[in-house]
């Protein structure tokens, strides 16, 4: 009899992958605030300074623009820096380097010098960190040509997608989520390299498609399990890659189910869901039996107080309610 495969946390999967890539390729270096001695704000880099030394696991001063830009410059000379920004919120200080430089250098200079940099940071609210520390601005990056923006939702994807990101020759924004670090899952041994630009149907279903990413995938799977008990079959598409966006996977799914709900952690207006909905309008118009609905964060700077925070962030109940509404709108009864 086989033993249950071991489960590891998302955090551990990231840590293992960084270690593996540091070991494999001397061009890989890590940069970031408090990633060395302090072992990272969220302990993703725990133990790595000791193992690889300060040249390769480099603590930076609090200077996001400076060290993100430096990583870009180092990448231009062939290093493969992996930068950690403590949270997405602080990446805004580096946005000039990410958007005006990292995303531009390869194309604007006529394809002469790739910029193989990975910029990792967690997004997400729900930790009572108040408005400046709880944002989900991934669309800001997903909007920009020249960047690749990926958001794994499981430990296995965290490994395979971080490996792919480090080996990719373009700047990759690697979106993590505070709520995911402690989640567990089976992670296959050995080298795993995901394909950037591919979504995944993480649960097959026939009645309605939930399209989501990152933390939302866990919520969607939970909601799908609940609905399954009632005999309602939800399909869950994890986008995984926000740029490039794998439209075919969710289009194909919605064509089958004829009903779609987007679950997104970002704010509603101009969000991921807006892009998905517009895509479905084009690729699945004749297959829709109800309007596409979006479950997104309330459009306020996220308050600190728990009841307000809970009210503002999309959760399983919100998703379940909207799924029911869409099913009801098409006369669906299980």
């Amino acid at each position, binding site marked *: 009899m086989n033993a249950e495969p071991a489960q590891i946390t998302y955090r551990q999967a990231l840590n293992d992958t960084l270690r593996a890539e540091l070991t494999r390729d001397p061009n890989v*270096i890590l940069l970031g605030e408090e990633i060395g001695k302090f072992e990272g704000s969220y302990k993703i880099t725990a133990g790595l300074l000791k193992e690889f030394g300060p*040249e390769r696991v*480099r603590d*930076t*001063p609090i*200077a996001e*623009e*400076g*060290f*993100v*830009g*430096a*990583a*870009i*410059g*180092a*990448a*231009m*000379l*062939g*290093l493969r*820096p992996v930068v950690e920004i403590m949270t997405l919120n602080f990446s805004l200080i580096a946005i*000039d*380097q990410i958007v*005006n*430089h990292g995303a531009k*250098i*390869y*194309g*604007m*200079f*006529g*394809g*002469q*010098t*790739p*910029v*193989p940099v990975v910029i990792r940071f967690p997004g997400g609210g729900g930790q009572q960190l108040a408005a400046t520390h709880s944002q989900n601005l991934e669309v800001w990056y997903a909007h920009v*040509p*020249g960047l*690749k923006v990926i958001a794994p939702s499981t430990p296995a994807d965290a490994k395979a997608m971080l490996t792919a990101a480090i080996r*990719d*020759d*373009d700047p990759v924004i690697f979106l993590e989520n505070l709520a995911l670090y402690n989640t567990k899952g089976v992670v296959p041994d050995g080298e795993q390299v995901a*394909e*950037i*630009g*591919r979504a995944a149907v993480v649960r097959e279903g026939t009645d309605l498609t939930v399209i989501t990413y990152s933390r939302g995938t866990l919520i969607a799977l939970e909601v799908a399990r609940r609905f399954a008990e009632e005999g309602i079959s939800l399909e869950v598409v994890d986008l995984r*890659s926000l740029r*490039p*966006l*794998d*439209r*075919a996977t969710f*289009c*194909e799914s919605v*064509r089958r189910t004829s009903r779609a709900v987007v679950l997104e952690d970002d704010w509603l207006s101009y969000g991921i869901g807006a892009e998905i909905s517009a*895509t479905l309008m*084009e*690729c699945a118009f004749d297959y829709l039996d109800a309007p596409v609905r979006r479950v997104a964060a309330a459009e306020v700077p996220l308050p600190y107080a728990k009841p307000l925070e809970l009210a503002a962030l999309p959760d399983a109940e919100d998703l379940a309610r909207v799924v029911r509404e869409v099913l009801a709108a098409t006369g669906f009864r299980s």
Partner: protein
Amino acid sequence: MSEEVQDARQLTDYYAQMVLIRRFELVADQMYKRARIGGYCHLNLGEEATVVGLMAALREQDYLFTTYRDHGYALARGMEPGRVMAELFGKSTGVAKGRGGSMHMFDAGLHMLGGYGIVGGQIPPATGAALALAYRTTAGPEAGAVLCQLGDGTTNIGAFHESLNLAAIWKLPIVYAIVNNRLGMGTAVEAASGEPDLYKRGASYRIPGERVDGNDPVAVRQGADAMLARAREERRPGLLELMSYRLKGHSVVDPAKYRSQSEVETAQAADPVPAFRARLLQADVLTEESARAIEDDAEEKVGAAVAFAENSPDPAPSELFDFAYAQDVPNAPRALPGDPLEVEL
């Protein structure tokens, strides 16, 4: 070859480069006005000595990052004038294949890693390039270093300070060369900088600074040489301030009404190109004839550059997505405005 003769050759060469840049920029100005060149176009007129002096100090193994005022650097670093002009014309033969234009000269082979249009944008990547050099190579007289050129106004941006700090704590082989042409666009250094002696601005980071005469290519070269040597051998960053002045507006469309006639006259009197010519004539490095020959040669080269640019093909719209990514991935967008979504099911 005696040192004197070698020096003479070098000086002649400096003059030739200065003349080439001068001629190139004057013609670029004309071409802009003839609508051959689009966008912004910033010229090195009046800054030729700083450009040539800095480039003389830079070695093959070194890397260069500059501002958008970069035509002279491209030429002096060794790019073909025709390909630089073609870039201005937006042609596919341009140094950046017509994708960058005036502000974005680039040649990976020549280690010219770009002119940057965002003020201060080049400073963190230049610092990172120095980090890569430090990570990969060992210090020594032949080690590579980075030269990061910037303007006086740029010393006020956060990226400048963050980068100097990084260079200091990480002991990076980089020289930040401020071309102090006394003005941002129209704002004087004194009005913009709490410490108008810009070479002192590295003091917070214990980065040594030095000010040299930017109108003298030899002085510029010597200043840069010394700092680059420290960078190569001691991994100590340096801050070099080159006192200069631009002869025309901030860009070709700027009439520069903000400066007084006397200011302009003073500047013209100090114009580094005729000044250096006179100096070389006086030192018998040049004769009137050899100077003319150099000037004629520059004129011919620039004329040929224009002809090359004119006759070069425009990039084809079909090449639009050619450099979307360095590494292709599935589902990369390829739609033109109004195209239906390409969703392959």
